[in-house]
């Protein structure tokens, strides 16, 4: 099967600091890919390069075998197909929960208001946030905001959904609700790329796992390979640290 998304020899430099070095990745449709690694290893940067919130320094990213870095590539169309769930939620503070989930649909996808509302309500229902449709983000807890963030992204009917540590800003008791929503999404067959420190969850839902260290992919494989039988010393050290902590 051909890849939905392909990253080839991707490099990203901030000033003189090379944050990503020769990153290669393939994501197949319906696949759940987890990216793990210690802080500062470049996980977020990689994710942000994928939806062009950061401009890669060199290399190629292909989506449906189209080079997204080409000059004439329609970035906004592409971003509409690649959803993003942020660590700090980034719900639109000026809009209520329902509007957060409809604004992208109406302005970017040009869906009519009624259809957008219907889709948004379905997704909000799925994440259990339907009772809060008129609430403003400031009136919600972190876990509630993140579930709205997921509903907002999914309402756009994306082909790929990117998660950047969606639970790490949450109080422990909020985490499970969000993970449940993500698990449900994975079961719908949505393609997902997930940066997380929730190792148990990653092992549970991932088809493929990438371990990053200092800007390179140090090891990759299936969830079993990485978590049960890591080959690299750095992977072992990293996982040991996490297992001890949890």
């Amino acid at each position, binding site marked *: 099967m051909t890849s939905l998304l392909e990253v080839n020899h991707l490099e990203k430099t901030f000033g003189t600091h090379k944050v990503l070095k020769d990153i290669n990745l393939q994501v197949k449709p319906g696949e759940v890919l987890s990216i793990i690694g210690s802080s500062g290893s470049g996980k977020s940067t990689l994710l942000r390069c994928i*939806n062009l*919130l950061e401009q890669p320094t060199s290399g190629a990213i292909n989506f449906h075998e189209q080079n997204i870095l080409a000059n004439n590539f329609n970035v*906004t*169309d*592409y*971003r*509409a*197909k*690649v*959803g*993003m769930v*942020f660590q*700090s*939620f*980034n*719900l*639109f*503070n*000026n*809009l209520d929960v329902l509007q957060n989930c409809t*604004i*992208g649909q109406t*302005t*970017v*996808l040009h869906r009519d208001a009624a259809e957008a509302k219907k889709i948004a*309500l379905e997704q*909000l*229902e799925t994440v259990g946030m*339907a*009772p*809060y*449709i*008129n*609430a*403003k983000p400031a*009136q*919600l807890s972190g876990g509630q905001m993140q579930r709205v963030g997921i509903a*907002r992204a999914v309402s*756009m009917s994306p082909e790929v959904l990117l998660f950047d540590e969606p639970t790490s800003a949450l109080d422990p008791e909020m985490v499970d609700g969000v993970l449940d929503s993500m698990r449900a999404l994975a079961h719908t067959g949505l393609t997902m790329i997930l940066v997380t420190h929730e190792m148990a969850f990653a092992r549970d839902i991932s088809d493929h796992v990438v371990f990053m260290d200092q800007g390179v992919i140090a090891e990759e494989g299936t969830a079993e390979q990485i978590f049960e039988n890591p080959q690299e010393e750095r992977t072992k050290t990293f996982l040991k640290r996490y297992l001890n902590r949890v």
Partner: protein
Amino acid sequence: MKQHRNFWFFLGTLLLMILAVPAATSHAASGTFKVGMEAGYPPFNWTQNDASNGAVKIQGNSTYANGYDVQMAKKVAKSLNKKLVIVKTEWDGLQPALTSGKLDAIIAGMSPTAQRRKAIDFTDTYYHSKLVIIVRKNSKYAQATSLKDFKNAKLTAQLNTYHYTALNQIKGVIKEPAMKDFSAMRVALESGTIDGYVSEKPEGISVTSANPNVKMIEFKGTNGFKTNPEDTDLAIGLRKNDPDRVKINAALAKISQSERDKIMDNAVNEQPKTNGDSENWFVAILKQYGNMLLKGTGVTLLISMVGTIVGFLIGLLVAIIRTIPVAGNRFRRGLLKVVDWLLSVYIEVFRGTPMIVQAAVLYYGAAQAFGWNMDRLVAALLIVSINTGAYLSEIMRGGIISVNAGQFEAAHALGMTHLQTMTKIILPQAVRNSLPAVTNEFVINIKDTSVLSIISVSELFFTGSTIAGQNFQFFHTYLVICLIYLVLTFTITRILRLVERRLDGPQNYNVMANQNQVSAPTDNN
């Protein structure tokens, strides 16, 4: 006699005239004797609300005119066997109205200057004014009979009048700085900072009747000031070669000096009181000038509100342009840089110079340099808008920048363009965040529009100056003005805070209350 009491007084009467809207009349062959005056220059002419003391109704108006000029006009009209009609006319409109036939005569405290004689004729003098010196009764100057007696006396007079220059005729006098008005000189005299002040006789009559502690020194023959008849004589203005001139001069000749003095004494006593004895001063000011104050308040509100709103839009636009991400091709980048530079020049210039100077440059400068004769109100609105725009553009830019970067990223991640991101997500937040600053700017504008009095916009402060120039109650008038400003700024601040709170909605979200509105399938039975 003063040709113009002063600038404020003139503008004040001008304003009154605009309010009064003098009705145009056609020149009747006989029957009526139409006399023009400002009806705002006591004791010569003033406006009152009733016919008491022999006042004459003002044409096309429910008010009455009285004063020395009115009483003289009555006598002249009687001798001509015509019915007297008083036409309230602004000072600058008197001569054109006369020459165009809308008036038959000007009896308005006008001196027959050579300049005026070119355009109109004058009768003989109907009032001759003498300069007097007002002193304290208990001072050594109270017994003075000649200018020589004022050696070493600390004297002053009103600013920009011939009274002040007349002080030079006193040998060894200590010339104190000229003062703005009589009330200031009265206070100075009483407090002893001056020994006396020079004025014309009417003020002398007026002050001595009001204050038993002061005395008016009149001079006989050559003991007094030498003055120019252009300054001291008043005459009736007539059209060139008016056949009635001889008759009027004959009528004037029949009015003796003692009769004239008596008319002036009466006028001084009957002129509108500067401080209401029976009424509370506050009520008196509101009663007499309520309409003017209301109008001034309206103008101030209009200028500051329109200025703030337009300034806000300018500021928003500038801020949007200045926060466009610098990207794209070289041409686009270069263009953005140039525009950005121009905008920062605009901001620096208007934030770095006083609004009063900006107003003067725009209004007077534009008139002089390019012959643009802008409407004062338009100029005022323009200045306040541009000025506010400069301040608010930086505030709005700060507001945009201070919106969390995550908001931009989330919008971009959904596929929104920069424009969509700005209009749908960033600006609503930036505007909301900068609302307190905009409110603040509004309040500042309410206060700062007072500097627009430099271009004679009849806003609240200017109105106050006009009123004070008429009633000489500076303290009380400005106190009222102060109070109005305070009420305005206080209520507007409260109202806008309330609006802000409304916009924010409640702090907490009530799930129960909202469930009714949710049309999710599980909620329906």
